[in-house]
């Protein structure tokens, strides 16, 4: 851990910043005109430009995606007028390699594009804008120098509507989460308008105003005192008056129950935020996992909120979850502090819950390497597999995958777990519901059921593993051979897996076991799979009740059949299966 080789691409500027004195002559003669991304397309720029006023170094760049071409030079007017000869068409991207001890991931966010929400008419009506476009219009450094005008006729609007939760808290479009910043951004915008243009009418359409944070409620009250009207209800439709270009907003006021129609000069869509598009790429580079909402998953939501599951990687800002500037700054400080602690430590201590490979038993098949979510196992064809213990987090997926018993998990060895299976089922196995539960979620879910005093059948017997992926075929088969009527393998929900995606191996294994049970004439329903989180005590109890009902349907004959039909796998058969899997992959 703490040993990353990072390759950084420094993009070519095509303008030497040490020579450029930002006179702007290159931009004046540049014939290319494209929308200015920084101004949200509300103004234009040239191919030679300064990306934004505060850019460092403060010098022009040539955007080769827009330029007419540098190989061969198609235009070259910028080079002709540059007295300092700062234009360099031969500039190339530079790859810089650095050895680093820690990585802080702070890749920010993307803003939701409201175009698919046709009811708001963002693509049909000029005077429907997003909150990001509002920011540019009201900003002194914006395309209108801070004069807030509506796009259709450059006239100052008198009645402005704000629609909240556009692209947030909407499961129908796959965005069930609150973006957390939009409410207070709108409150701030209404105060800005009231300050800049006294007499302007602001109407905010909302479902809830979430003013959580220091002085936020006070700001919200100030907005109301400044005359902003807050209407509880999200508009169902926006129409445009073709003559005045005014917008007719129809909304059900859920407080009064009335259907209201508002004629407004302009509507601002308070757009939500979403994970950045490059998040998947970074996720692959650093073997990070994601939540169901698409943000990065932290190592632990309470105890390690800035740590990634991959050691030496930390999060700051929006890529981990929606948060405002203050929280982002706090998290960035915490991430820097965590990284500093790692870099300053002469040595580190890791949990002794790691895999160990027995070289004598390893057959060099290499099946263990691809199932490791942390890439902690190195294997080359014809060579023994090697575990980098500092990278191993102890899920046990490799140990469960190895058919030859060559990989053992310290403190969770096959022998230890099988001994628990046999001991639990030694007496009256027909009366017991046997369960494997992962340490982080399912086992904690059982604890939650207990401390919440939720009653469930007392027939269950739970064996704890670090991850559901640790449960091998052999453990399941041994439980049935010992007379288990039903068996549960349970783990974290997909997005919550504490070992990135190790529980996907569990799913594959359970599907293989269902096939194997069926072939052996054993009812596959006797093997169950559930995802139970630490907070789902109710679900744990429900599953235990369902399993108890299932157990009652298993006859002694079925149990006896499974005892004899499921044979331990011979080494020869295991080798054949391994070869088949290797060939298929």
């Amino acid at each position: 851990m703490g040993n990353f080789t990072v390759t950084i691409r420094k993009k070519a500027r095509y303008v030497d910043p040490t020579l450029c004195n930002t006179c702007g002559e290159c931009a004046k003669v540049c014939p290319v005109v494209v929308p200015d991304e920084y101004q949200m397309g509300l103004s234009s720029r040239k191919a030679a430009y300064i990306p934004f006023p505060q850019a460092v170094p403060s010098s022009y760049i040539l955007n080769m995606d827009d330029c007419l071409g540098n190989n061969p030079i198609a235009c070259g007017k910028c080079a002709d007028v540059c007295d300092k000869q700062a234009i360099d068409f031969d500039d190339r991207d530079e790859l810089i390699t650095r050895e680093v001890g820690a990585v802080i991931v702070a890749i920010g966010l993307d803003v939701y594009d409201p175009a698919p929400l046709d009811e708001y008419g963002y693509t049909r009506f000029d005077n429907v804008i997003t909150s990001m476009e509002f920011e540019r219009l009201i900003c002194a450094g914006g395309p209108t120098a801070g004069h807030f005008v509506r796009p259709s006729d450059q006239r100052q609007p008198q009645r402005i509507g704000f629609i909240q939760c556009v692209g947030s808290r909407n499961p129908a479009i796959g965005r069930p989460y609150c973006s957390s910043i939009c409410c207070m951004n709108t409150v701030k915008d209404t105060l800005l308008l009231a300050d800049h243009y006294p007499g302007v009418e602001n109407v905010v359409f909302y479902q809830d105003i979430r003013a959580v944070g220091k002085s936020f409620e006070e700001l919200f009250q100030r907005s109301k005192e400044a005359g902003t009207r807050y209407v509880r209800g999200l508009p169902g439709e926006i129409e445009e008056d073709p003559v005045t270009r005014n917008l007719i907003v129809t909304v059900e006021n859920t407080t009064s129950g009335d259907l209201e129609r508002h004629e407004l000069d302009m509507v601002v869509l308070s757009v939500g935020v979403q994970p950045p598009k490059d998040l998947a790429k970074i996720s692959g580079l650093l073997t990070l996992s994601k939540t169901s909402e698409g943000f990065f998953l932290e190592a632990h939501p309470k105890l390690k909120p800035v740590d990634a599951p991959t050691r030496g990687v930390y999060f700051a800002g929006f890529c981990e979850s929606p948060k405002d500037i203050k929280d982002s700054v706090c998290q960035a400080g915490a991430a820097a502090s965590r990284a500093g602690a790692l870099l300053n430590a002469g040595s580190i201590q890791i949990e002794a819950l790691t895999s160990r490979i027995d070289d004598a038993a390893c057959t060099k098949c290499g099946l263990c390497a691809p199932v490791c979510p942390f890439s902690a196992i190195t294997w080359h064809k014809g060579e023994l597999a090697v575990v980098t213990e500092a990278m191993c987090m102890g899920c046990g997926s490799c140990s469960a995958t190895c058919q030859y018993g060559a990989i053992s998990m310290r403190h969770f060895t096959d022998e230890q777990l099988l001994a628990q299976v046999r001991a639990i089922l030694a007496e009256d196995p027909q009366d017991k519901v046997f369960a494997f539960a992962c340490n982080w979620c399912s086992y904690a879910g059982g604890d939650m059921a207990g401390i919440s005093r939720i009653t469930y059948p007392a027939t269950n017997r739970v064996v704890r593993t670090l991850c559901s992926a640790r449960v091998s075929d052999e453990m399941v088969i041994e439980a049935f051979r010992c007379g288990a009527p039903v068996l549960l393998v349970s783990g974290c929900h997909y997005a919550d897996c504490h070992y990135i995606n190790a529980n996907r191996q569990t799913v594959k294994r359970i599907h293989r076991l269902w096939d194997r049970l069926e072939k052996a004439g054993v009812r596959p329903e006797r093997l169950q799979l559930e995802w139970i989180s630490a907070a789902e005590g109710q679900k744990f109890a429900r599953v235990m009740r369902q399993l108890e009902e299932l157990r009652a349907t298993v006859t002694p004959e079925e149990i006896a059949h499974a005892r004899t039909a499921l044979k331990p796998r011979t080494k020869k058969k295991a080798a054949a299966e391994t070869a088949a899997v290797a060939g298929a992959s």
Partner: protein
Amino acid sequence: METTVESFRCMMCGEVFQESMEKGEDRERTCPKCRSNSIRHLKAPRTPHQERMP
């Protein structure tokens, strides 16, 4: 992304249902009837040609 409609069987309640499935998807499945996660993907039966393949 290639999407197909596939059949699934709940191993808890026996409910058979169909859902769209994207190739290479990474998605948790739940029984629409009993909310169990014991969902078995019912693969199409192998063709005689596939049966002959090693």
